[in-house]
């Protein structure tokens, strides 16, 4: 178990961070994250090394999160670009240089970003977190989620576009004050 303990040490914060943003609340996230490592321990003998250990753990985490989300019936409507953020318009962000409140706004921006992630569908949120936060490749994400690489890319694009819209709306509100 000492060796498996090292695996938990290495991956617990990354898995917990992913799960925390995928399920409803912190208590659920703790339960699901524990379950990830329990399942991994139980099935470790069947791990054949065809995928990386990281991909394998995230696949377990993703499947458990989807199960938990289905049970919680927390499923925002699928996101499309129709009627939403116009992705062909150039994005303009307020210039924060010299802003004495710049440091404070970074924390606020993080809160806005977290809020934007929470309003996405599970499909988009998964790809966004796995790629942009956990640095999985498109192929690894495709293996984890069980969709083609092309679908991974389109979901990532949709997720980023959604988040850009959320942040732009927030910054527009800030600038107009």
């Amino acid at each position, binding site marked *: 178990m000492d*060796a498996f303990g090292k*695996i938990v040490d290495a991956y617990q914060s990354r898995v917990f961070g992913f799960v925390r943003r995928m399920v409803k609340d912190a208590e659920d996230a703790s339960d699901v994250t524990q379950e990830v490592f*329990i399942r991994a321990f139980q099935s470790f003998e069947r791990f054949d090394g065809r995928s990386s250990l990281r991909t394998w753990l995230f696949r377990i985490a993703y499947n458990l999160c989807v199960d938990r989300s289905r049970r919680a019936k927390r499923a925002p409507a699928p996101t499309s*670009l129709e009627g939403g953020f116009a992705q062909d318009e150039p994005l303009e962000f307020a210039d924060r240089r010299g802003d004495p409140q710049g440091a404070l706004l970074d924390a606020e921006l993080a809160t806005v970003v977290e809020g934007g992630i929470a309003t996405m569908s599970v499909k988009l949120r998964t790809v966004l977190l796995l790629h942009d936060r956990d640095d999985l490749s498109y192929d690894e994400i495709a293996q984890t989620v069980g969709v083609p690489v092309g679908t991974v890319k389109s979901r990532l694009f949709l997720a980023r576009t959604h988040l850009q819209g959320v942040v732009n709306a927030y910054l527009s509100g800030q600038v107009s004050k």
Partner: protein
Amino acid sequence: MLTNLGEDDRPNAEQMALLDARLDAPEGRTVQSWVGNLPEEEPSLAWRSALNERLREMKPKPGLRRRLLYPGFGLAAAAALAVVFWTAQLSNDEPPAIGPTLEAALVSTHRDSVRAAELAGAGMAPHDLATLHKSSPEEPQFEWNELDVETL
């Protein structure tokens, strides 16, 4: 071209090229940096203690085999058994080589500890088992430490 993409759509070749360009564009990288710089989430110590307890409960318990081994002779008998079973398992049930990586070392070490526990219970440590077994040339040994684990 990308306006009508849905969550489950499979983009065509032209859409893929556009997607690659947009995902690698500065705006896409900006969003990537926002998400990448979100604060780390660390489970609590209580969470870790609870997990350790559950994992301990799941470890194979030493059973009748241990109770039958006489103290003083038990370790020697277990060592002999380990050599016999390990040799047999090598020819029949050797898992495929994963490769000389840190992850492979963790996986291999965990498997050794499970096998040691199954053969001799708490009396034999994994390194005792490892010294009895000559590693094949296809399984390079990786000396890893805490710093290596942090790089994962």
